[in-house]
């Protein structure tokens, strides 16, 4: 018996799954896997689920209530017992008038309840853009996505151990998506700009047109291996930043990561138009502040910053003192942190 057990080759699930992952990546890159397939399937389950389970859509929930308020009085009368079917038919005939009476009252109750809920839903709609997704579309000013290259080693390391697909939200034309995909990661990107995502898709990078929050909202919890947020998250107000960060964390599996690839506020303050500075709803946060928000979500955090050294810090005595002071002050203005990568592990 033991001999037979020893003769059996071990199934190396880990190795086989790695091969399957690579095959899936190849198929995605070739366009053989429609980018929207998984989204379509997930959406179908949400739509097929009753209120309070997987679905959060109020209008469809109200329609389900309306549908459920009507009873079918045609009861099944089949039976395995001799004469059972006859007895059931007779019972259903005798009780029909009673059931109709009850059903009429219940249908009326359901109908009134449905009308109230529809009216409530309409009222809520009139209050305007209450959902975070709608709030985020109104935000000013555009924020450039910092270059990922100074952080490529950290990003690749995080991506290679991610327990599932990685999402880069606001991926632009997909530079980071390509960088990590080339390093073996299973990654896709979304960006609100159709032009940018089309450019990415043309280059066979899995990029889709969507906003970060709207896309995350469509996913079930604990589905992603990692989420990288960049771009306009820097310009969101603090509550909006928190909403997005919380949602990204919810969608990430245990041991997965959430990353912020952001600009340093000091760089932004130096470069942005004063009018934009005054009127902007939000501004970039320092890496350490992001770290604080990550800690509130119980993420294990590591911070990496890209800095520019002051080129005039060590000027020699051969430079006249007054010029040296001016250059050093200028250098101090231009140097310091430019961008950061804040990584939180769930």
């Amino acid at each position: 018996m033991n001999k037979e057990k020893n003769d059996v080759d071990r199934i190396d699930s880990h190795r086989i799954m790695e091969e399957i992952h690579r095959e899936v990546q190849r198929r995605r890159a070739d366009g053989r896997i429609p980018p929207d397939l998984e989204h379509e399937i997930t959406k179908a389950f949400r739509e097929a689920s009753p209120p309070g389970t997987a679905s959060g859509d109020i209008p469809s929930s109200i329609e389900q209530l309306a549908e459920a308020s009507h009873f079918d009085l045609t009861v099944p009368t089949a039976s395995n017992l001799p004469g059972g079917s006859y007895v059931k038919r007779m019972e259903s005939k005798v009780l029909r008038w009673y059931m109709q009476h009850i059903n009429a009252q219940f249908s009326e109750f359901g109908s009134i309840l449905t009308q109230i809920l529809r009216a409530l839903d309409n009222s809520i709609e009139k209050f305007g853009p209450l959902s975070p997704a709608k709030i985020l579309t109104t935000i000013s000013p555009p924020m450039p996505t910092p270059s990922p290259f100074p952080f490529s080693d950290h990003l690749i390391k995080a991506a290679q151990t991610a327990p599932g697909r990685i999402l880069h939200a606001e991926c632009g034309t997909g530079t980071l998506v390509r960088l990590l995909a080339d390093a073996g990661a299973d990654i896709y990107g979304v960006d609100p700009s159709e032009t940018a995502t089309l450019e990415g898709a043309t280059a066979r990078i899995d990029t889709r047109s969507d906003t970060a929050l709207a896309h995350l909202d469509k996913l079930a919890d604990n589905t992603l291996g990692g989420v990288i947020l960049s771009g306009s998250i820097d310009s969101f107000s603090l509550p909006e930043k928190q909403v997005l960060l919380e949602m990204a964390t919810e969608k990430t599996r245990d041991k997965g990561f959430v990353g912020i690839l952001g600009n340093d506020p000091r760089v932004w303050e130096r470069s942005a138009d004063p009018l934009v500075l005054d009127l902007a709803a939000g501004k970039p946060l320092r890496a350490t502040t992001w770290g604080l928000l990550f800690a509130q979500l119980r993420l294990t955090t590591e911070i990496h910053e890209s800095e520019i050294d002051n080129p005039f810090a060590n000027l020699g005595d051969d430079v006249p003192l007054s010029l040296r002071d001016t250059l050093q002050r200028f250098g101090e203005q231009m140097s310091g942190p430019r961008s950061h990568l804040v990584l939180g592990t769930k």
Partner: protein
Amino acid sequence: MVAIHQFVPSLVPHDAISSHARRAQNLFRSKGLESEIYTASAHGLPTKLARNYKNFPRRGTSDAVLLYHLSIGSEMGSWIQTRSERKIVNYHNITPASFFATWEPRVTEELRSGRKQLHALANITKLAITPSHFNKNELEGAGYDRVRIAPILFDPVVFDRGPDRSLLNVLFEKKKRGGKDILFVGRISPNKCQHDIIAAFTAYRRLHDPHARLRLVGGSSSPVYEKSLRTLMQRLKIADAAVITGNVSQTALTAYYKAADIFLCLSEHEGFCVPLLEAMSHKIPIIAWNSSAVTETVDNAGLLLPTKQHVIVASALDRVAQDKDLNQKLISAGSARLQDFSPEKNEKAFWQACACILEEKE
């Protein structure tokens, strides 16, 4: 005469716990012990198989041991706590209530009550027996200090008891049209995640095998969840390729196994999972989500998935379907793994666990 009586809240035909209790009864009787099964309800089973637990003698006896099968909260679970006899808890696992919270609140209450009873019994139980390390951890967490692992009792021969011929013919007729037959056996229940199976199957049909078929065999623990699964199948346009069979006879079950090409399990919570052994017995390669006790029951005898991404699961199905070498290795590994659960070994382990209590003086 020393007696060991079993208490099962509900006896159901083709149910793993019911079958285990009956085999345990035979085992105890073969050892010369008096042994009866007591239940609160015996759906569709001959009344001679079990007695109503309310008819159990009121006065306890010191030479009797009561073996209580715990998998859900029940009146019987409260009643057993009032008994003075020595007690063994045979823990088959209680599904966490969170799986049912939004689907079947009524069931949630029974599950929560089961957890409470699990804790309440810890201090008044001589021994807990359970089929997996996963369950053992739960028991130890609940305060049980004496836990033995003994597999659930079953006979693989039963798995292969002649198939329903007419059903088998229908299934093989469909097979002639091409496409693989994917199977999962287990109650329709949110923790077993049949919705993930349907999703992965849809991806498999779209990406790899447009003629594939899916069969979800088993009764329902949640009519609401089942209705959603049926709606999901319609929305994904696979209603003609996927079927939820409901409860089936042993012969029909054998027919479904015989027609299956791959057994796919994406369950998130199992205390043991007997259908995995049934699949091994029928020489069907297994693909399973690496979770709860599934991991240790499958051991090396299946392709364990670290993710449930639909596209990845679909590709795993395709790999096992296309890679004949891997397919054969999985089947061989399944047959070898099944030897670990031979009736002789299982009965020996179960008896040894119970015997240590029987030998002890009150």
